[in-house]
């Protein structure tokens, strides 16, 4: 019997859902093994009953639950709890679900500031009141799903990778363990390390030095070339079976989308410490908090104190 699968999406762009689609051919095999019972992106499943007759939101029971997106509203919170109740195994899909993702950058300011900015101060917006009717109230900040309910497995990445999603689901269905790497992106990065000392950062637009067509293990570490790279503080795995990290393959430094290597890790502090040691003036780094926590702002970003 096919395993039942439920999927919910919260504060998210929908990219991780596309990733499921991107699994490609293996998806066909996978679909044979699962029965999708709830997935708003695919089907219009009414939460309050088909006629809206129920007082509480309800999701069908499932063996596997997927949640993409962080928690931004009271409704997300309730839905997450409902998913937890109904799903045997709950998976956080993508960095938004795992760490808050890009939406969690909003945690740099208070909800009130956020609303003011969006609905009042934005030049492209008419100065109206805040929306208030029929809309679930925003939470005080963006939460990772694991901050609200227990999560059994995290599949980080922005978006996460098709290979990982398929791998995780297959492992789950076949009763095999599935674990994330505890290594950093550098572990999989083939570039050459010569001398870290860097005093100035270069802009992304400038582009690194490399020989087109030559293997990446002949290119010098992008950080050593002056491009701020989050590799050392970012979990590896984006490269999948091929190994080489995704951004590096594109001659770009790691953005950190796979999030920190461990729950306890503090990528900003770790990177700032390392960068200042090799001689980089820490003041050079623009928008530190957002740069190092671009995908992991839930619980790591907070509004600057009022002085």
């Amino acid at each position, binding site marked *: 019997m096919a395993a039942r699968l439920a999927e919910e999406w919260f504060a998210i762009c929908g990219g991780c859902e596309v990733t499921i689609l991107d699994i490609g051919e293996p998806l066909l095999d996978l679909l044979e093994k699962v029965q999708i019972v709830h997935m708003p992106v695919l089907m219009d499943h009414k939460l309050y009953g088909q006629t809206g007759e129920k007082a509480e939101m309800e999701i069908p029971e499932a063996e596997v639950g997927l949640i993409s997106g962080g928690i931004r509203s009271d409704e997300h919170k309730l839905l997450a709890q409902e998913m937890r109740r109904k799903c045997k195994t709950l998976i956080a899909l993508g960095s938004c679900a795992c760490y808050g993702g890009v939406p969690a950058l909003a945690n740099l300011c208070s909800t009130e500031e956020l609303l003011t900015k969006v609905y009042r101060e934005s030049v492209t917006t008419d100065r109206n009141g805040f929306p208030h009717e029929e809309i679930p109230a925003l939470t005080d900040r963006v939460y990772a799903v694991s901050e609200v309910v227990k999560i059994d497995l995290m599949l980080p990445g922005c978006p996460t990778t098709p290979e990982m999603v398929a791998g995780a689901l297959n492992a789950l269905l076949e009763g095999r363990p599935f674990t994330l790497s505890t290594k950093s992106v550098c572990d999989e990065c083939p570039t050459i390390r010569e001398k870290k000392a860097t005093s100035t950062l270069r802009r992304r637009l400038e582009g690194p030095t490399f020989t087109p067509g030559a293997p990446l293990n002949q290119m010098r570490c992008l950080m050593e070339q002056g491009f701020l790279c989050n590799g050392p503080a970012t979990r590896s795995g984006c490269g999948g079976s091929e190994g080489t990290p995704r951004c590096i393959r594109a001659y770009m430094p790691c953005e950190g989308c796979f999030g920190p290597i461990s729950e306890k890790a*503090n990528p*900003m*502090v*770790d990177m*700032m*410490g390392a*960068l*200042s*040691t090799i*001689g980089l*003036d*820490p*003041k050079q780094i623009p928008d*530190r*908090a957002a740069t190092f926590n671009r995908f992991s702002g839930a619980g790591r*970003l*907070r*509004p*600057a*104190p009022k002085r």
Partner: protein
Amino acid sequence: MGLAAEQEFEPIILALACNWCSYTGADLAGISRCQYPANVRIIRVMCSGMVHPNLVIDALTKGADGVVMCGCHPGDCHYQDGNLKAARRAEAITLMLQDFGIEEERFKLAWVSASEGPQFAKLMTEFTDQIKRLGPSPYKS
């Protein structure tokens, strides 16, 4: 916490002191009987350059009201220039405190030589006063 307790705010202050100069200076403060507030807890490290920024940030986000990192004066480092590296990291730490919502006055880098016992006591006294004026850390529940 009652009103009386608030008035009697006794901050927890950590001092990370390098073995060769600052920890020796702290000992000299003792030998010279220079008095300073009892709020300071000194942790000995071999070099200020061995202090990972995480140690400071962790302390300040887990209940310390102030952290002071002490090393040898520039040029005096037992390990050539560990203190200068510490200074660069301290700059980074100061910047990051903002990001964590912590007043930057809660962290300080100071040079204390092995012969600066009175100076060590003075530093601790002033820093404790400063922290007392700031009040408890925002991370204290």
